[in-house]
């Protein structure tokens, strides 16, 4: 048996599908390619797959629907969502529904591998990822009033520009707050921030 981790990719764009698979093979992963959610449900060898890289927006079964279908069938493969610019609110839903991580198209090799490796370690219902309500709120209390305001908009998937407009500060200032609050909360990825928000009640 091979020790290589197996990553399944679901994307309706053939070239994104093929090129992601080429890249992951070059990085030493085994891959399986699926042009649609339906194809994945019919063809994928679910026992072999360690991680699912899933496009959010597809005709037919959407990424979110496939996620729900898997969870209804009690299949817990960690999912990394790929989103396009402007799809972040959809990705926020996905994280709330238990996806491990999300990356935006076009992504770099580093972002892709980091996300996959993160998702392979990710356990939704145990360990450091699950957090009590009190623990989450204790962390959020470390933020200043302004940082908290920024946080609330960040976890909705808003951009610096929109947040800036909302709070009447410059996008650059928003970015400074964003970095600061990530540091204080010990959460590098947007996905972690969203989970923290969810745990806080």
């Amino acid at each position, binding site marked *: 048996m091979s020790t290589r981790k197996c990553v399944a990719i679901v994307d309706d764009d053939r070239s994104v599908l093929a*090129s992601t698979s080429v890249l992951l093979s070059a990085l030493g992963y085994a891959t399986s390619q699926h042009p649609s959610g339906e194809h994945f449900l019919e063809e994928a060898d679910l026992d072999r797959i360690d991680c699912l890289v899933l496009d959010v927006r597809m005709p037919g079964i959407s990424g979110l*629907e496939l996620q729900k279908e898997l969870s209804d069938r009690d299949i817990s493969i960690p999912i990394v969502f790929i989103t396009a610019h402007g799809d972040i609110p959809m990705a926020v839903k996905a994280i709330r529904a238990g996806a491990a991580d999300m990356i935006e198209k076009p992504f770099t090799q580093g972002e892709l591998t980091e996300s996959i490796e993160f998702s392979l370690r990710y356990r939704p219902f145990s360990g450091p990822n699950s957090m009590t309500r009190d623990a989450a709120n204790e962390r959020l209390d470390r933020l200043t009033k302004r940082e908290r305001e920024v946080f609330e908009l960040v976890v909705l998937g808003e951009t610096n520009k929109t947040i800036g407009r909302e709070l009447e500060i410059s996008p650059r200032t928003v970015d400074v707050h964003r970095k600061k609050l990530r540091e204080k909360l010990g959460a590098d990825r947007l996905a972690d921030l969203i989970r923290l928000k969810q745990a806080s009640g």
Partner: protein
Amino acid sequence: MCYRFHADGHGEVIAEETELSDRYLGLHYPASDIPEPARKQFLLNRIRIIADVDAPISQLVPSAALDLSYSKLRAVSPIHLTYLRNMGVAATLVLPLVVDDTLWGLMVCHHSTPKLLSATELHSAELSSQVLELLLENILRAERDRQIIRTQELAYSFAHTETPTFELQDMAAKLAHHFAVDALAAFIDGVWHSLDNWTGDEVDLSMLHQKTHDDVFITDDISAVVGQNMGDDLVGCAFLSLDAQRNDYLVLGRKRFNNVVSWAGAPKKAVGFDKDGLPILEPRASFSRWEQTVASKSKPFSQTDHLALSVVLPSLRALLASKKAQRLADTASLMERAQTDLRNQLLNTARSASLGELAAAIAHELNQPLTSISNYVSASQLLLKNPDEDQKNSVIELMESAVTEAQRAGQIVHHLRNLMKPGFERKLEFDGNDMLEQAVRLALTSSRQGGVHLDLHLSPDAPSVYADKVQIEQVVFNLVRNAVEAMEGMEERRLAVTSKITDDENFEVSIEDTGAGIDPNILPYLFEPFRTSKSDGMGIGLSLCRSTIEDHHGRIWAAEIGDGTRFTFAIPLGQTEGGNEH
């Protein structure tokens, strides 16, 4: 490093990656550093390699005249080799970046010891620069198109002025902000108007009417053109001819700008003479930073500014015409004509605004090829580091895929550009089913909701339609987006799109949704402008659809069906004349 050429031919290092302490980033190099013959070579050959600057040059003894234009082994000028030695460089690889058929810049790789690259490495370098070129071209075009869209929105806001008693001053403030100028003045009906921040005296610039191109003239040094300044340190100028008789004009002024340029060495070649008295070109030995302040010019107006000014000009004219007409409103017909002008302007600019949305959807599509390119190039990088020779060979294949994807990105941008061409008639013959399928797909992927089930029933015979394809595409796009919005939050989301050729030779398209249906109170006014049931949007979508379809001598209607709505439009198939009044 990446070296970019400026409009006057001199170059600047705009990106750099190096292990050496010598940094070139931000330094400017005079145009004469890369003479004209070398530039021509870069347009012909997409790669130039010097593996060892000290390698002996072999003489060729041809029996007839020999053209070495395309030879990659051709020796370079000894002056250039001295230049490289002075910089401490032993080997170079240069990949010219050609954008829109002009030399945009160079990717330059330096090595401090001689370095011979394998054929595979050279080939993949060449392919990488092709990918880079295509992406660059796309970025530059997208940037330009973005500015044009913004300008079209400005033009729309002018044409859409509710109060016909607008003030010149308001318009001037908007223009000054949009084009980042310091002052504005106008000369209308023999009267000089000092507008936004113009504190200097009146200047006669009427001679610039002759210098305009598309009724616009731009310069960053007005004294070089008219022999005098415009006062108040205004040295840059954009000039707009406001009427066909070439009397009225508008001037946008930019102030003097102190631009500090960091040259790599003093930009002068040391010139000596040989024993025959001919000049010896001697490249400079020092490349240390040498700063020069250029203070006679303003920040330049770009070609994009030029284009954008010509985009906004028609609505300025329409505005001024209507204002004039008001002033002289003793004849009713004049007033009427101005109003028709204004209405046409309004319609055209509304069309552009709605194009903006279609354009955004297409721009969104760019992410797919960009992702693929990034993947292929990253995979190639990994394989090149792999010592296995077989693996290296597959790099070529991957890079070719990357080029294909870059071309696909190019096509998307091309499509985008077609949408941006300002409003003259673009009727052509096309396959209606192809158009329909593409526009529906685009509208579905661009809408925020997934999971819409699509039933596509296309007519068995391909309908050959003669029409303005972009406009019909826009109608389909709007109708599908409306349908998807109407189904938001519904249990069943089913979209049926049907095309057929009717007995009376019409191309008929219907779009059916399982949405909330239409409020019967709104139904009679559905296609009137500024009626909307949506919370956002201007309510011009459907009225625009109707005017487009009617321009094509067709008709559009809506009907309630069991659970949802059906929109249908029909346009004559082989229409060859009439229609669109642009």
